[in-house]
């Protein structure tokens, strides 16, 4: 990969840093949503470029579903120590107890929908007026329609028909009390851009993005789900040990592994270039429910 091949990354990086600095300039109480996944890791890297030698003008917030990969949690804690920034963790487990919510059920109990409650609670608790997230428009077609500054009402709801026009590099973050803005600095990045950027910037990632042996359950549709204490397996389920890696890191219960021998970033980049299946299609069970699954979750306050 020559310098020229990654010229466009400078443009994407500049755009993302500009957006982050607009958040810092326009809002009183921003937060950066950090999961330990590759996209939010890029956000941290971009924030370092945007604000050092100063401190981040926002804390990091992690919504802990209780179903996280231990590798991602370790990475999160190591990162926070390394950059010496504030981390706020709120657990879905606690929200379930306090709000007496029904926990996720089934063989692969996903708390994906439940984490919206915790997110909205943490926004209220700290009176966050903006939350920076690592969502990208190429991930999913409802996301492709969302603004970079996405205004949510006091219930966190996204109204796709009432979005503010967003022009040039001018971001309107004016809101009323109780509302908040979700901000997506890497909206215009693709999965491949993220990996090319990680390579160019030599960004360290949690180990699960690279090939490793893992005990998995094969689902009916052929997806590989990591065995863990959170799964409700039947006697008939067979466990297989495979060489796998993760393309995206969500919950252990709803993120599938892919078979891969890629242990270097270059291998991963080649793998993605050849991949015939989209990132979310390959790995997310939560999007398979219906055609508008993401749109519905966003309307309900999901990030």
């Amino acid at each position: 990969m020559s310098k020229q091949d990654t010229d466009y990354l400078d443009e994407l990086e500049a755009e993302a840093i500009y957006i982050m600095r607009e958040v810092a300039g326009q809002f009183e109480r921003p937060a950066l949503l950090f999961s330990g996944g590759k996209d939010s890791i890029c956000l941290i890297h971009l924030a370092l470029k945007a604000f050092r030698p100063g401190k981040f003008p926002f804390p990091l917030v992690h919504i802990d579903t209780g179903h996280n990969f231990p590798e991602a949690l370790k990475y999160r804690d190591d990162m926070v120590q390394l950059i010496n920034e504030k981390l706020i963790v709120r657990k879905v487990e606690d929200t379930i107890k306090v709000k007496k919510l029904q926990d996720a059920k089934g063989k692969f109990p996903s708390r994906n929908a439940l984490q919206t409650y915790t997110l909205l609670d943490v926004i209220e608790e700290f009176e966050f007026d903006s939350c920076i997230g690592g969502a990208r428009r190429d991930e999913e077609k409802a996301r492709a329609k969302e603004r970079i500054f996405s205004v949510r009402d006091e219930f966190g709801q996204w109204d796709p028909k009432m979005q503010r026009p967003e022009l040039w590099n001018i971001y309107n973050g004016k809101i009323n009390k109780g509302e908040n803005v979700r901000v997506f600095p890497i909206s215009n990045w693709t999965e491949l851009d993220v990996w090319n950027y990680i390579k160019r910037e030599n960004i360290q990632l949690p180990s699960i993005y690279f090939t490793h042996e893992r005990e998995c359950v094969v689902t009916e549709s052929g997806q590989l789900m990591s065995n863990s204490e959170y799964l409700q397996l039947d006697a008939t389920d067979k466990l297989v040990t495979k060489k796998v890696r993760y393309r995206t890191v969500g919950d252990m219960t709803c993120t599938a592994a892919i078979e891969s021998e890629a242990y270097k970033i270059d291998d991963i980049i080649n793998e993605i270039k050849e991949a015939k299946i989209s990132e979310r299609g390959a790995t997310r069970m939560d999007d398979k429910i219906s055609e508008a699954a993401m749109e519905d979750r966003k309307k309900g306050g999901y990030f």
Partner: protein
Amino acid sequence: MELLRFFTAGNVDDGKSTLIGRLLYDSNSISTDIIETLTKQSKTTGGDTKIDLALLTDGLRAEREQGITIDVAYKYFSTNKRKFIIADTPGHIQYTRNMFTGASNANLAIILVDARNGITDQTKRHSIISAILGIPHVLVCINKMDLVDYSEATYKQIEADYLTFAKQLNLKEVSFIPASALAGDNVVAKSEKMLWYKGKPLLEFLETTEIAELKKTEASRFQVQYIIRPQTDELHDYRGFAGRVVSGVYKKGERVVVLPSGIETTIDKIEVHQKEVEIAETNTPVVLHLKDDVDVSRGNSIVPIAHLPKTNKELTATICWMDSAAFIPGQKILLQQNSFRTKAVVKEVISKIDIHSFAALESDGSMKLNDICKVLIKTAEPISYDSYVDNRGSGAFILINENTNNTIAAGTID
């Protein structure tokens, strides 16, 4: 590898989404799982092709149900030669404001024309918006050529009609391609059915057309977004002005003025990602340090003494009204130009631009959704700006309703 941002505009049934779908599909940018989903959907909506390519860009449920595009959809694809960001903008008249949104960052416009209908009011509106937004290159894609028997005469007639209309718009460059998005003619591969067309098919055109960027000779502009003050023991006096080089270049040691205060000083140091540099070019995120301890806040401009922008409390501009609520004379609003925001008021609606002829019509002082008007604006604080024609970065602004916080208009300064 270069990045080309373009947008597509056209009437409701010009086949815009199909064209984008075709570009993505034929350039192998669509994953198999998404094709599977599309095949499923295409059957349920009863499309007349095996895969309804338009469904690729229509991301919202209401769009799929109604078969229309409501909002700008961003799509990404790349070839060996270039990376592309497409803003697919709706043709529906009530969503024209979204076309402004999609077009504002674009280097190229693709305006679709249905070969059966020729130039329509929408074509004119889209072209006028492209002209107002200073889109460097307009490509008129004459689509559905299969439905006019691939007739060269029809194509020539539309081309001539368009050029007659566009003469007054001062578009920088205009090109034409005859195509059929549905059949795949001249989209990725050259059409066998229109051998009379000697130009490039669409994809090749997009891969090779020159990307017009901000001119390097443009005056240097910088606006403060955020002030970095670590206030630690070892960085006690550190006070850096973070922002993006909007245009031109910034050099260490250069004499500059802070606007609107007018205080002169010198650039002491330029940092890019915490490394000191001598020169920073357009679009680079930088931290500037000034020699003197002067008062600088967010939204202030730091510009070279040699090339000052205009700075005053009054400007004339062309604006597109984007709010469903009509303009109320005397209404207090906010004006935002990059990171600068001030209270403002529209003092006068000077004229209304006719979307069919581009002529300035007499105004009755009203402005409603989708109206394009020339206005006089007064601001509470002095604003530093250039004419949009000279500098897209410092000549654009939005208007915000102070009460609803909505973005109600987009403007380009005369």
